[in-house]
């Protein structure tokens, strides 16, 4: 199981939808897509890298071969995949506290959805319908979503500053360098690895420690033989 890749957490939630309500849910997503102002609440959750909702009709599971049994499902299903920073509880709670109405609008069509308030039944529902990830990869495990956004701004401002003031007289350079730092004060900051960046990194570290220990044991044994 590997829900973590550095600072990103992968959540997968699968919830059943009554087939005749799946369309209502699709229309709500379509409205949100066409009128992004409805996603303002989601944008405030700056801890999200990427998220998606997928609705599968009860007869829409991929069927690729005559030997594959055809599904005979009573419900359609909604899949929710998100990549976020922080812990599971922080993420779920931030949804509840920031955008409870929007959250309910997306999920209220799911069977036995308890609504996002109160918190405990909502936690139970998500946990019950969550599937663990077997392998998770992030291209930038050292960075959060906010780091990615800040880095884009920093890169653009640094290049712009360099184009204009690289060889400027000292006084001009200092003045605009200070302006640059002032403009970037929310975007600067060191990024460091989390204690466990990924299962792969943890395994590599474990092997490295084991190899060092074995090498030390060999050295001691060789010295004792001398």
């Amino acid at each position, binding site marked *: 199981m590997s829900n973590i890749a550095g600072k990103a957490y992968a959540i997968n939630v699968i919830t059943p939808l009554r087939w005749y309500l799946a369309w209502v849910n699709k229309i709500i997503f379509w409205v949100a897509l066409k009128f992004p102002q409805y996603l303002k609440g989601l944008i405030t959750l700056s801890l999200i890298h990427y998220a998606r909702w997928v609705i599968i009709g009860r007869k829409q599971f991929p069927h690729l071969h005559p030997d594959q049994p055809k599904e005979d499902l009573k419900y359609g299903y909604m899949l929710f995949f998100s990549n976020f920073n922080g812990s599971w509880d922080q993420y779920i709670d931030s949804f509840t506290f920031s955008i409870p109405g929007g959250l309910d609008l997306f999920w209220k069509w799911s069977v036995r959805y308890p609504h996002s308030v109160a918190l405990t039944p909502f936690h139970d529902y998500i946990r019950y319908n969550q599937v663990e990830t*077997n392998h998770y990869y992030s291209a930038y495990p050292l960075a959060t979503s906010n780091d990615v956004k800040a880095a884009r701004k920093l890169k653009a401002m640094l290049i712009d500053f360099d184009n204009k003031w690289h060889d400027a007289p000292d006084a001009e350079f200092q003045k605009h360098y200070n302006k640059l730092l002032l403009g970037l004060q929310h975007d600067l900051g060191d990024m460091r690895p989390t204690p466990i960046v990924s299962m792969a990194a943890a395994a590599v570290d474990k092997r490295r420690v084991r190899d060092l220990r074995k090498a030390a044991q060999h050295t001691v044994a060789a010295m004792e033989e001398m």
Partner: protein
Amino acid sequence: MGSNVSGKAYALTILSPIKNAYVAGVACADTVRDQLENWNLLQNSPMARVPQTYLARLFVLDDVFTQSLPGAGALDTVSDFLPAVPDGIRRAALPTPDHLKSKYLVFSIDFHGELEPYLRGMWQAIAPEIQSVWQHCYGFDAVSDAEDFVAYMKKCQLTAALFFVGSNDDPLGEQLKALYLKQEFSRFALESQGLPTAELKKRYQEFIARVKPTDLTGPAWTPGQYALLKHSDARQEAAL
């Protein structure tokens, strides 16, 4: 009605049905799961070699879940808790158990660019890893090259009802260069505080010559990099 695209970012969602079969006494779904778990023990994920991949996840979906806890609907509550409701009615009101007949390999990726070039790039980068996992899926037997792979994946693809991009949709190389610059410039700003202007400018020019902000082929983070560069570490240690 939905869309897999947001700006230049693409949300690919794949459900590949896994064969209901056993090989040497082991279910194909368990073999797939084992192989994916083994990817966790490699130096880095095979997906690090697939160009333009932001984030990717793979898991085996064994079944769907039966909902039996009370929900928030008025009828749910009434049917579950009113002692006056006969047991037969109460049970009939419970959601029906639902089960999949196949297990599915779920593959979800966020990447920069368009679908077909991405999938071709994926095949070119990690075809052996793809074959070792997907060979246990229905319909993959006919896949032998990049074009077959593209066609196969399209058959397994589901459309996102809503795709939300919370960071940005720049090419991965741009993002990794930007993160590298953020790390290095933050350190430069910290270390050069209070320097006389002439010295600051000299060090800044050396800094720019080293980090090459506009050169994507110059120094940058690499895909999947989970430890800081030795240079940065050395500088950090020296600063402490």
